[in-house]
């Protein structure tokens, strides 16, 4: 009888230990990043950052006692793959939320799936149409390109320059930027006297720039991601094009200065605050997050963190914040995301609401200029 009692209590205690160990299975978060292919410069820092942040959260004991687990896949920047992998994350891996994908077409492709399966998605792509109109389960952390456009136009308006030429890259990023440039020009009294595109892999843009010169534009706005804009900067210098050149936040990384060299001098662009973290005034609410992220990324990956990584940082931290508010189910995370106000992240200060799933204001950007191969703030 006594032996029986012991074996019973042993069994019970084993069960107890097990139940403690398995009490809180990790919360699975899916990641879709374009780690290879043409969008690799976006996807790689995003995946690296997401891994880094999730590791750190787990080291610090997880969220509300539960660890996070990141299940990430490479979409290669292809919308079809992104859709298949989103299905895999939801149906096989049974994730609670998804971070990514890196580009706007991929995000648009997977939106119908997450809406149907009721899984919150935090997209890392910039296209305004991801969250406009608002979709119940879709949020984003990358700054809307409409904000970047208004920064440039406001500056031009102050400088009393009204005749502008635009060159946009023929990718999702470029066409979304072009839409915004064309939509907002009139509001700032600006006329677009020349509008042309360039291919992401074109090696010479002299043809377009000659036409820019002939158009008598007072300024040139180039909307693209590396390496195209750097080639434009070089070609413009070779042609002796003297008008001021503006670029998009798509090139706000040291890589652009490396590629363009001296031709980058004097170019101005709206940028997230990551690249100028140390130049920001002490009063800036994002300064703490920014400095921490930059230092962390440097320690982990021996290279500078950029705003792409920042988008992933924001996404993971926002999910963490949503879980901390007491929701670790898909619906709970979604509802709590909408309640987040004044979250000082890398891309800006996020305040989501039922009407706004992009969450950022104009202060997400600063205007920077390239001087002596480094960034300075334009006052």
């Amino acid at each position, binding site marked *: 009888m006594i032996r029986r009692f012991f074996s019973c209590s042993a069994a019970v205690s084993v069960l107890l230990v097990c139940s403690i160990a398995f009490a809180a299975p990790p919360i699975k978060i899916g990641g879709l990043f374009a780690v290879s292919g043409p969008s690799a410069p976006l996807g790689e820092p995003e995946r690296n950052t997401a891994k880094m942040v999730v590791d750190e959260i787990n080291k610090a004991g997880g969220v509300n006692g539960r660890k996070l687990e990141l299940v990430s896949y490479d979409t290669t920047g292809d*919308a079809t793959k992104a859709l*298949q992998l989103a299905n895999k994350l939801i149906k*096989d891996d049974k994730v609670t939320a998804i971070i990514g994908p890196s580009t706007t*077409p991929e995000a648009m492709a997977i939106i119908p799936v997450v809406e149907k399966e009721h899984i919150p998605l935090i997209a890392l792509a910039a296209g305004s149409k991801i969250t406009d109109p608002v979709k119940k389960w879709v949020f984003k952390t990358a700054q809307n390109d409409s904000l970047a456009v208004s920064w440039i136009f406001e500056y031009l308006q102050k400088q009393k320059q009204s005749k502008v030429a635009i060159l946009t890259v023929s990718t*999702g*990023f470029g066409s979304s930027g072009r839409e915004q440039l064309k939509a907002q020009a009139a509001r700032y009294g600006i006329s677009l006297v020349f509008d042309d595109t360039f291919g992401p892999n074109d090696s010479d843009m002299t043809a377009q720039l000659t036409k820019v010169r002939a158009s008598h534009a007072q300024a040139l706005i180039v909307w693209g991601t590396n390496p195209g804009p750097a080639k434009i900067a070089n070609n413009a210098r070779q042609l002796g094009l003297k008008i001021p050149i503006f670029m998009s936040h798509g090139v706000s990384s040291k890589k652009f200065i490396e590629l363009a060299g001296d031709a980058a001098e004097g170019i101005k662009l709206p940028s997230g605050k990551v690249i100028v973290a140390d130049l920001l005034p002490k009063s800036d609410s994002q300064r703490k997050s920014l400095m921490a992220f930059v230092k962390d990324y440097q320690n982990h990956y021996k290279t500078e963190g950029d705003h792409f990584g920042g988008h992933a940082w924001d996404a993971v931290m926002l999910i963490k914040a949503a879980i901390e508010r007491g929701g670790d189910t898909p619906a709970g995370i979604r509802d709590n995301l909408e309640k987040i106000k004044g979250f000082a992240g890398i891309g800006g200060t996020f305040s989501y609401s039922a009407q706004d799933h992009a969450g950022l204001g104009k202060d997400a950007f600063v205007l920077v200029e390239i001087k002596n191969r480094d960034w300075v703030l334009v006052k």
Partner: protein
Amino acid sequence: MKRELLKFGVFAILVLLAPLLFSGGYLMNVLVFVGINTMLAIGLNLLLGNAGQISLGHAGFFGMGAYISGILTATYAWNPWFAMPLAAVVVGLLAFLIGFPILKLKGHYLAMATLGLGIIVFIVFNETVDLTGGPSGLSGIPNLTMGSVTFDSDVKNYYLIWGFTLMIVLFAVNLANSRVGRALRAVHDSEVAAKVLGVNTSLLKVQIFTLSAVISSLAGSLYAHTMTFVAPASFGFNFSVELLTMVVIGGLGSVYGSFLGAALLTLLPEFLRAAHDYDIIIYGGLLMLMVMFMPGGLVRGVPDLFRKLFRRGKESGHA
């Protein structure tokens, strides 16, 4: 012929029963794409395997089917069942018209011309932003419906796509065994000899090119209505090459080979994902080995392999 029907019957039953094994999971979704790719591979195989004419522009026809269907239904609110045949007719007409000058070319020159065609189509998708949505893609394409059934889940899409695929398999098998099929093979072996025997080779080549384009367009329309979103990146040069690889790996001139090639190239990356960062290397290595040791494609290589193993086993048994 009876044997062909039997083969088809077995294949069809396997296809129809597959969801019982994989239902609910993510694999179901991949199998939908296997169906679409099988259709495309069969279309290209009719041209490449039977008639011996290469095309590096088939992703273009695939994309045109997807975009015409997508634009008509998403922007102009057409019924998908009307948009699909219209897309097929437009793509077919286009292929027929450009087929005459293009198919006069041979070998590398034909490859270059079709490559150019594919790239032009790709550029049009990217640049006509008002129509196609440009590089950021076209969304809001409706699912197909049949009565009260909307094809909006993986299982429903599986039966929809594979229904079409099975029809195309049956059609291709019949075509290969018909008078036209024999004429095509004659063109493949020697165009001059075929001409001497009274085959109108230039017309026949254009006809098979058109048929191949129409099948691709149909696959494209179905793709658009299952994905409900299309972007140009899915229809680039890379995809044309992938299709060509499916046909060659599967087995030139074989309908079931096209299926094997499409299934392998669609499923392999999914299984290799477990190998994380090395998956691309393993994938490339496997393809190289297959081309080196199975020049006839999977459809001939796999039975050969079994036969060899079996015979060796027998010999050692005797010894």
